[in-house]
């Protein structure tokens, strides 16, 4: 059986070689395939849109747009409220029963790992992309549930739909409503630097790694100042 297979394979190869033009077109096809896969996956680096998105965000470093947020205490402000501080952002909706609680729990753990910087160098901000349901009252309940203090870790919504869309688009957050009031969405820790630019997008399941990265970033800056 195996022997037959090899003979058959040989015959196929010979018939390829017999015809020069066909050999040429075969090589062209293979090269085309290589080029197609190379560019289609950014040099074999990104086989999913999510990887591609993260790689691109790291390169482009988009600026956090001018949007008005309303937090759980009813205060309204834009990102300039956090001037000269890093801001760690997550996107969520409070009715979410799957990823968001995990995301916020992890965010809380990250918060606890950075006590020497929180408030002084870095602030935490959870942004809801479901502003119709997530009013300040609801955000306040959610805030308490996750032990955020509402000041160094705030929970806010963006009321204006256009502003919200713009932010989500710029930061590559894709949200799909499933028709039952739930959303499927991609999650990550977004770190915005002191100038309002997105500086890092980190895996929200790797808390230790994120904490180390943030500490290094802050340390290197204060080190430069001295």
């Amino acid at each position, binding site marked *: 059986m195996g022997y037959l297979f090899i003979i*058959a394979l040989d015959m196929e190869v010979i018939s*390829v070689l017999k015809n020069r*033009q*066909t050999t040429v077109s075969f090589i062209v096809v293979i090269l*085309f395939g290589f080029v197609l896969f190379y560019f289609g*996956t950014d040099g074999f680096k990104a086989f*999913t849109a999510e*990887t*591609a998105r993260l790689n691109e965000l790291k390169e482009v470093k988009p600026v956090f747009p001018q949007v008005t947020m309303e937090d759980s205490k009813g205060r309204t402000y834009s990102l300039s409220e956090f001037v000269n501080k890093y801001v760690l952002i997550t996107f969520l909706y409070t009715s979410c029963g799957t990823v968001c609680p995990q995301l916020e729990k992890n965010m809380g753990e990250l918060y606890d790992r950075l006590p020497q910087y929180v408030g002084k160098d870095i602030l935490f901000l959870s942004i809801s992309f479901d502003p119709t349901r997530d009013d300040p009252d609801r955000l306040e309940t959610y805030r308490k549930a996750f032990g955020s203090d509402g000041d160094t870790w705030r929970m806010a919504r963006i009321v204006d739909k256009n502003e919200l869309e713009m932010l989500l688009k710029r930061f590559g957050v894709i949200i799909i409503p499933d028709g039952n009031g739930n959303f499927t969405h991609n999650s990550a820790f977004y770190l915005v630097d002191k100038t309002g630019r997105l500086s890092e997008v980190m895996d929200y399941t790797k808390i230790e790694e994120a904490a180390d990265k943030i500490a290094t970033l802050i340390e290197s800056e204060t080190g430069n100042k001295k």
Partner: protein
Amino acid sequence: MTSFIYGLLLYIFLMIPPVANLVESIMITHMHMQMPLLVIAGFLMGKLFQRKFPFFFKKWNSNGIPGITLFLIIIIYWTIPRTMDEALTVQSIEVFKFISLPFLAGIPLRDSWSKLSSFGRNTVIIIFMIKYFGMGALYIWWPSQLCNNYLLIDQLTLGWGFVTTGICLLLYLIYVFMIDPSDYE
């Protein structure tokens, strides 16, 4: 000529925006309905191209191997999770889908399949079977979303769709290897 017209009609039908949006809104119909239908549209239209340019096909695809390889490359390309996402979000990728599947997969398939030996054909089917089981396993067991534009449940459905297709191919291969048609002639 008739087959060309049927192919063209199918192609145009698939391009109508509401039709395209509908089949693309569900992951499994995007991959296992729209994409194969585009290939079939090209397959049906292929006859006319074969007639118009007989020498081109004879010269450059004399044994069907370059053609079937191109077909395989295009089909495999469109099973990468990222390409499915980008077909929805990037206009040029969507255009490429509508060009590549009929013209770079459908037409070469038509021209190549009849030129392949039965060994060649079975090899293609084996490649597809392995690929479908592999992709099925990937989509079923991958813990998170592979495509940002589809729900996790869609991903599972697609995974099982792949496995089912893989099983069909396996049954076909078993049939081919077990049964000698001449016994029944």
